[in-house]
């Protein structure tokens, strides 16, 4: 983690020239050879279940267990063989503090299993992989289960501070008089619950809702409502196609409630939506003139994802076949009000350090927080001014081929369980690369609060 840039925009001051980078691309595997290689050997996720106005069937840990059981069941080593469990989760329930540990115990991984939870908002699921990656790379562990889980439908109703303060006063009132006077001070607004999710999706520093940050960068990079809607439409079509073709088999494992309800697919997908239908939706965040609508934003969703990371030692010990190697990762920060551009900073820095160019990346997973935000990132990378002054490049990064980006849909069609998405895009990137016979890919995401995360993987 020593490579983290101290300030935003200080990504890479002295980029090597294009010709140099091209020539060194082939040697990228040999950089920092003292580090141990780290492999992804397997992974699975639950279907992503759209929140439907009431708490969904699973808590965050339930989801992690639903996803982890079949994944562990298909390994040829015992669940207790892991060295650690790391789980990303943003909205932790009061009943499930340190969900990583609760999940590990419920998965039968043994009392002795160290487990901790990481939280970096929308990057939590990737942070867990990154922490596992760096730990194994440094020789501190050989086999780690790293995941993300989120049940946004369970986000709590919170009492306003004023109400909580009143309750404290009432609860501690001794005499009848004190109680009566406390009762007299009660105002209806004090008991009006605040929807925790809404607070969670509002940047605490700028007080901008995430949707507003998308409006802002969409405006800066001139993303039209039609372009955003068209992007959203394709996200649904791509996911529907992937579901139909069986491309998600093995990656998505069914979940079953204890009442016997079967959930076997991502249920937010709307393959029958159209430009006309999308055009009818009203702006959700900046009424009436905004262009970010429920249709071109990611969905509020529940889901969990796990990947298994292993060192070479673990591969040998358990006879595992790796799917891919994690080459490197990068995290960047920027003004929270334009958090959506995070991917451009961290991904560019990551490629610079590995001496890779845009063309070297055969597939991209860029988390679809908002269609306008994804399109703004793409536009920024094509913007000469932005690339020169912010990314420190000598020329625009260039256009990311549409056919290399989010090929099987993304958070707009799948949903965005915030603590899970980062994990899912890494897992899916690996599977999509392998399916396409491709080698190198980047998974990247914007993170509420003004951060971006990126991870570079290579199929082995």
């Amino acid at each position, binding site marked *: 983690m020593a490579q983290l840039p101290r300030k935003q925009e200080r990504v890479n001051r002295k980029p090597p020239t294009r010709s140099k980078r091209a020539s060194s691309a082939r040697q990228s595997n040999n950089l920092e050879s003292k580090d141990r290689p780290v492999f992804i050997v397997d992974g699975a996720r639950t279907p992503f279940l759209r929140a439907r106005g009431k708490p969904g069937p699973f808590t965050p840990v339930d989801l992690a*267990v639903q996803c982890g*059981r*079949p994944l562990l*069941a*298909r390994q*040829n080593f015992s669940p207790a063989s892991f*060295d650690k469990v790391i789980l990303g989760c943003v909205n932790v329930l009061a009943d499930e503090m340190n969900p990583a540990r609760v999940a590990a115990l*419920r*998965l*039968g991984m*043994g*009392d*002795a299993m160290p487990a901790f939870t990481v939280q970096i908002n929308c990057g939590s699921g990737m942070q867990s992989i990154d922490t596992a990656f760096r730990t194994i790379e440094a020789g501190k562990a050989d086999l780690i289960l790293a995941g993300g889980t989120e049940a946004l439908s369970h986000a709590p109703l919170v009492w306003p501070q004023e109400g909580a303060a009143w309750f404290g006063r009432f609860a501690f009132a001794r005499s009848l008089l004190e109680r009566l006077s406390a009762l007299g001070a009660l105002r209806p607004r004090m008991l009006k619950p605040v929807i925790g999710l809404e607070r969670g999706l509002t940047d605490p520093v700028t007080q901008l809702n995430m949707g507003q940050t998308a409006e802002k960068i969409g405006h800066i990079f001139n993303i039209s409502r039609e372009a955003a809607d068209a992007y959203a439409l394709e996200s649904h079509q791509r996911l529907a196609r992937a579901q139909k073709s069986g491309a998600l088999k*093995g990656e998505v*494992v*069914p979940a*079953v*409630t*204890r*009442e*016997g*309800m*079967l959930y*076997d697919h991502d249920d937010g997908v709307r393959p029958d939506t159209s430009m006309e239908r999308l055009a009818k939706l009203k702006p959700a965040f900046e009424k009436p003139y905004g262009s970010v609508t429920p249709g071109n934003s990611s969905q509020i969703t529940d889901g969990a994802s796990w990947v298994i990371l292993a060192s070479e030692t673990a591969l040998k010990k358990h006879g595992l076949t790796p799917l891919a190697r994690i080459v490197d990762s990068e995290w960047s920060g920027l003004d929270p009000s334009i958090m959506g551009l995070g991917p451009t900073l961290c991904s560019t820095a990551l490629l610079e350090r590995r001496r890779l160019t845009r063309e070297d990346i055969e597939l991209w997973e860029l988390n679809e927080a908002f269609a306008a935000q994804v399109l703004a990132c793409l536009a920024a990378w094509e913007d000469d001014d932005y690339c020169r002054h912010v990314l420190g490049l000598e020329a625009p990064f260039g256009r990311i081929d549409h056919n290399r980006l989010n090929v099987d849909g993304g958070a707009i069609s799948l949903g965005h369980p915030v603590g899970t998405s980062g994990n899912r895009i890494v897992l899916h990137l690996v599977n999509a690369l392998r399916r396409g016979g491709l080698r190198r890919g980047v998974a990247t995401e914007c993170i509420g609060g003004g951060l971006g995360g990126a991870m570079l993987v290579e199929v082995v």
Partner: protein
Amino acid sequence: MAVGRIPAGKHLNRNRLTLGPDAQEIAKTTHWSLLRDADAIAWLVLDRAGESTNTLSEPVMTELETLLGQVEALQPKGLVLRSGKPGGFIAGADIRDFAGVSQRDVVEGRMTQAHALVDRLAALPMPSVAVVHGHCLGGGLELALACRNRIAVEGAVFGFPEVLLGLHPGLGGTFRLPALIEPLEAMKMMLTGKSVHTAKARRLGLVDAVVEERHVVNAVKAAISGELKPTKRGAGLSRFSFYRGFAARRMRSMAAKRAPEEHYPAPHRLIDLWEHHGAGKKEVMQKEEIHSFARLLTGETAQNLIHVFFLRESLKAGGKGASGIAHVHVIGAGTMGGDIAAWCAARGLRVTLSDLNEQALAAAIGRAGKLFDKRLHSGVARRDASDRLTPDFAGDGVKQADLVIEAVAEKAEVKRKVFGMIAPLMKKDAILATNTSSIPLKELRTAVPFPERLLGLHFFNPVARMELVEVVSHDRVSDAALARLAAFCGSIDRLPALVKSSPGFLINRVLTPYLTEAFVMLDEGVQKETIDQAAVSFGMPMGPIELADRVGLDICLEVARTMQSGLDIALPDVPGWLESMVAEGRTGRKAGRGLYTYDRNGEPRKSTKYPEPHSAITDRLILPMLNTCVTCLREGVVGDEKTLEGAMIFATGFAPFRGGPLRYARTRGVEEIVGALERLQAQHGDRFKPDPHWRKLPAN
């Protein structure tokens, strides 16, 4: 990763019982110790020598009498009564003392003596406290009731299971319990024999406090200093005889619904006691309890049920030992497969359940959730059981399981195909068990390269209620696999019966003549309700027509065919209408219609108007069953009589108060049975021909 050799939890969570801090031993007998602690409190600790569980035998009671004398002389500040066995308090009387008892006056004398002892405990001049962990049943609970306070350690279970042995409490329970807790609750406990768990015991006022083991010393001090007030909720309205009369009438009709009085008199005697003496003097209630208890104990029902108790113990003993099975993989999430998987998970095993039909698999998980709600007592236990049961959509569990149970369609070719697919994936020492109800294993064992590890494991429907499991061997099974599978049954609280693989094994072989005879009678025009009533009056839990519907007419047909083709026996022909019903999908309860139609709760719609059955119908149903039991003994399908008798009771519910089919035959007279069979043979044909082995049956 574990640093030491023993996990911390395993090392530290051993059950450590508090037997008084810095206690000094005052006296020690074979089964009891008397200690005195630093606070001058006496601890009377029962730890029965040579037994894993504490029960009350004659020597235990005699020693207690001596020690109570010492306690009286010692004059401690208080007395604590508890068990030195980590497993539990006292499981009740030593049933061995009850077997074969026939003289009523001897029993009365013994009980009067025992009552005097319990009265002496209740009359101690110093406060007394029973500290209860684990099981506290029957006589054990009666001792606890004689103490001033009862303190339960979390996990304690209380109950009066006497009624299940055809008895009612006999050591003061019938009057001490209704005096302590709400009398209707007390009667419910004694009438149903159901245990109550810690939390409910506290709610009922059966115990004054529930504590963790680590607080036992402080709780005892509080009880003895008088800080912990004894709970008393008895009496109330039941002081009035009109109220007791009204309540007793309701109880009688409920008891009669569960079991008829002529077969199971104990609940009715208990209700009599309460109705007539419930508000009387203690001396009267005591005398009446002793009198009634002695009459029941020396009666036929109790003696037969005590016999059944030992049949269960004997089957249970066959399931002792380590199975080495921690992970079970079940293939097929139908009724049987799904319910077997759920049961195993409820009993603490890791289970993967697979099925090609995803909806069926999910539905099985839903049924499991209901089972956990009903059978497990805490949210934690329910969650853990659900977590242990993985719906395995990919079938990956086969590779990790120690035992694979196949419960797919009852067709040899389907089963062989499944075996062919999974055999190469299984662990080297894993056992493969088939839940076939009739297919001979020699037809299946060639489908796997390891016949020594292929066995039959035949559960009965409903899995959660039928305790018996047939463990089916064949000529190439290894003894080790057989022993492991029997131990597996023990580990999930089921009773294994070892049987040889012959068509229908034991239970279906015996039931088939019973069911087919009922079909013949249907064809003769006997009303189905009449046929069923004949069997129920005999003491079967349900009649043959209803049973056929419950088992599934398709399964019945399959079993009958297997038996007709595989055995040289006279069976009535399978009626043509049975085949057409199966072809139409009218397969019984599971389809909502079979010979009966079923309502939404799965209850058959029966006509209330039908001719009363006469004894000839009963004999035509029951005697072929008995005859086949004898044939199975002769052929060695089952190794011994005890296993046969126990298997029939715990798999078919064969009238337990009759003590088993052969005990019934002997009670009625073997000669008389053979004669009746011969008469039926003359009338209806060779299917009633008495087996030659009848003549060789030992006399008892």
